[in-house]
């Protein structure tokens, strides 16, 4: 069960992948914390120990689909996002895009140095980006890139064959500087001894157990949201990969771990009541959804899809299965990412507020009625009894049961099939299923192109000739307001067509203790620069 749970998280790798850690958030952690007994002084030095949710496959983030604090903080990106998800300067002081939206120019900071002491230049950025394009599993996120140029040591010019708006998101999540000397020396094995310009310096990894870093004391080029502009306080940071949640909890309570990332919902109450423990909650950039196999004849009729959306009540799912640590979502995008529109969300909310009578009526119009009086709708002698694929995570199984009882009320007999995540994904990708409980997320609205664009719809199998130009417009419009409007059109279309039922965005919970100045958010990650350990 545990394994599947972790597998599951990985599955959402893209979510985590791209966005990673990084997208908007609802609240950052409280900066002030006292140690458990209220004693102790915050000061310089010490090792911060973090229980991370999963061990990254490799520390070479260009090769990994799992990118989070545990492996990406040796590197800086050209741009960053602040806690609200807004894009801010980082390695690039400023950037501009040409009139036709095809040429991006980044002006670099001049004071950035690698861990080795070598100054960073535009050539290095070019080299890193070219490597990303050549080898990264996420390379498609960079868009229709034609060439990268370094006209002078502090300018990077990137040319696209057509306008590609999500590029800014990719730049703030992936595009940074890898140590060029190491790259030459290690090549594909860069992950064995990685180095960059970031706040953490690689020290040691123990496969299956931990990764340790030294804190980069020379680091003076934090993005503007870090308060400490001088030398960082911490000496070292260690990420531990403990799979068992109970073990993690005991380590945290004992104080041997100061930061507990992705706290499971059922622990949150207990931690909130513990003195000296701070809790940061950040709304995820992903959406959990009930997905139809839109190639399946059962779901060809839009009325059936709409009826199922109307039969679902998100409140018990959020309250009971998620312990209140989620926000119901009705529209295609969560409020945490650019492109989210309140207007679309409200339309969806109005259309799909739970309405059993209307749902039944729509199903009847589509030809599904209960002719034999067994309480299950049927059509042409076949009962409406779709199979729902669910991964083994207990929370998801609970949600499946809630959905089962809600759909029962409109006469649909949901057959729950709990399977491991790889099997689930395999069947969903091959369209060899009826329904599946899945998740998607990316820090950019282009996620909708990746979910529904031509040739991309591998989970929902929903493509539409009317939708395609709307999605393409969204990814090609670099003006922020015009882009938002483009996604409103996409959103309205999708809400009407209902190719899936969005359920909620979860709160990502981080617990911390014995630290001062601790802040984290889905878009910034942990801000190591500001953290002081409290010594007792």
């Amino acid at each position: 069960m545990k394994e599947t749970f972790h597998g599951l998280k990985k599955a959402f790798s893209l979510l985590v992948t791209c966005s990673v850690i990084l997208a908007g958030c609802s609240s950052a952690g409280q900066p002030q914390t006292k140690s458990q007994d209220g004693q102790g002084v915050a000061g310089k030095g010490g090792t911060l120990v973090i229980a991370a949710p999963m061990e990254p496959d490799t520390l070479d983030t260009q090769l990994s689909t799992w990118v989070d604090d545990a492996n990406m903080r040796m590197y800086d990106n050209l741009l960053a996002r602040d806690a609200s998800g807004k894009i801010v300067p980082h390695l690039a002081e400023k950037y501009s895009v040409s009139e036709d939206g095809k040429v991006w120019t980044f002006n670099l900071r001049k004071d950035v140095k690698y861990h080795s002491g070598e100054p960073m230049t535009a050539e290095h950025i070019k080299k890193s980006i070219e490597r990303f394009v050549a080898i990264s599993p996420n390379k498609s996120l960079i868009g229709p890139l034609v060439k990268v140029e370094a006209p002078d040591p502090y300018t990077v010019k990137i040319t696209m064959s057509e306008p590609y708006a999500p590029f800014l998101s990719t730049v703030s999540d992936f595009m940074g500087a890898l140590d060029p000397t190491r790259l030459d020396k290690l090549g594909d094995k860069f992950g064995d001894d990685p180095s960059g310009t970031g706040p953490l310096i690689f020290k040691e990894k123990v496969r299956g157990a931990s990764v340790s870093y030294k804190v980069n004391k020379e680091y003076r080029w934090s993005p503007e949201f870090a308060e400490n502009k001088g030398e960082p306080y911490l000496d070292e940071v260690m990420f531990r990969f403990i799979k068992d949640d109970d073990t993690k909890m005991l380590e945290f309570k004992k104080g041997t771990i100061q930061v507990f990332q992705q706290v499971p919902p059922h622990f949150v109450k207990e931690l909130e009541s513990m003195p000296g423990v701070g809790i940061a909650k950040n709304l995820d950039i992903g959406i959990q959804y009930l997905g139809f196999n839109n190639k399946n004849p059962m779901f060809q009729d839009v009325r059936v899809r709409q009826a199922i959306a109307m039969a679902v009540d998100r409140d018990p799912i959020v309250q009971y299965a998620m312990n209140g640590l989620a926000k119901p979502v009705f529209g295609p995008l969560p409020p945490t990412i650019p492109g989210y529109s309140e207007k679309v969300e409200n339309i969806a909310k109005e259309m799909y507020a739970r309405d059993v009578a209307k749902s039944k009526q729509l199903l009847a119009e589509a030809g599904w009625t209960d002719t034999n009086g067994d309480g299950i709708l049927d059509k042409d002698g076949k009962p409406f009894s779709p199979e729902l694929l669910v991964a083994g995570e207990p929370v998801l199984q609970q949600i499946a049961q809630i959905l089962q009882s809600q759909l029962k009320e409109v006469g649909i007999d949901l057959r729950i099939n709990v399977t491991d995540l790889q099997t689930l994904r395999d069947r969903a990708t091959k369209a060899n299923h009826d329904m599946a409980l899945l998740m998607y997320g990316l820090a950019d609205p282009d996620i909708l192109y990746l979910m529904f664009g031509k040739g991309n719809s591998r989970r929902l199998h929903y493509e539409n000739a009317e939708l395609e130009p709307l999605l393409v417009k969204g990814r090609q419009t670099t003006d922020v307001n015009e882009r938002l409007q483009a996604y409103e059109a996409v959103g309205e279309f999708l809400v009407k067509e209902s190719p899936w039922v969005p359920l909620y965005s979860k709160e990502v919970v981080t617990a911390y203790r014995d630290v001062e100045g601790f802040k984290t958010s889905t878009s910034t990650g942990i801000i190591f620069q500001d953290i002081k350990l409290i010594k007792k």
Partner: protein
Amino acid sequence: MQKYLLKRFVSLLGTLLGVSILVFLMVHMIPGDPVRYIMGEYATDEAINAMKVQLGLDQPLIVQYFDFLARFIQGDLGTSLMTGITVWEEIVNRFPITFQLACYSVILGSVLGVLMGVIAAVKQNTLLDRFIIMFSLIGISAPGFWIALFLIWVFAYKLGWFPISGYEGFFSLVLPAVTLSLLSIGNIARMTRSSMLDVIKQDYMRTAEAKGAPSLSRVFSHGLQNAIIPVITLIGIQFGSLLAGAVITETVFALPGIGNFAIEAISKRDIPTVQGVVLFMAMIYTVVNLTIDIVYSFVDPRIRYE
């Protein structure tokens, strides 16, 4: 003896060959696409296919199997698709932890288990006997993760005698070894007890008593030496399976052992890693079994391999 060893060795190779076919078929038959996993959710189909060609996963199964076998014979267990680290390197890093853990828990389990079994048999139907049976039953039936968490809570969290989790040398392995040995103690104690009870009823035991042999020597050299054979088999099986890694214990104590590694590889559909690790485990298991069979002949002179 030599002929026997040769025969056993050949059958060991046969077993491994069988295991290799089974593992190979299983990892290739179960649903789930490792390439999709490496490439991430939104990789295009062309990119996926290109990667499959690069990894040789587009070849017919039979070709892939012989390729895998050929490399295995040359000592190459394969390279992880996910991490790019060779399976052998991972095993070299992780097996020592699993090995130590297995040794400590088997030693603890056999010493205490045999002792308790003997005591229970000699003191049959007394309160002590009942207590030992009860204890064994608890050891066998309590779920491993529960025992593990209970021990952590008492001895690491409350008393602070041991680290809660992780591996930093011998002390980190005490609680996991105790957790694992509880199961062995239960099994071994019960087996020893019933085997001893059979032996105690034998004529030669009465003879020994009649000729006035001291009771300790009677129990151990006359009794236990005859009763120990099935117990050794059991200890061997326990040791073999412990060497394949104790997944739950390793998970709860966050030990980077081999069991944890295998499970992770399976959940990620890391084909070469699963194949390599399972074959390695099968090898260990069969070698341990062979060793146990040889040990019999030393313990019991009646057993001779010709």
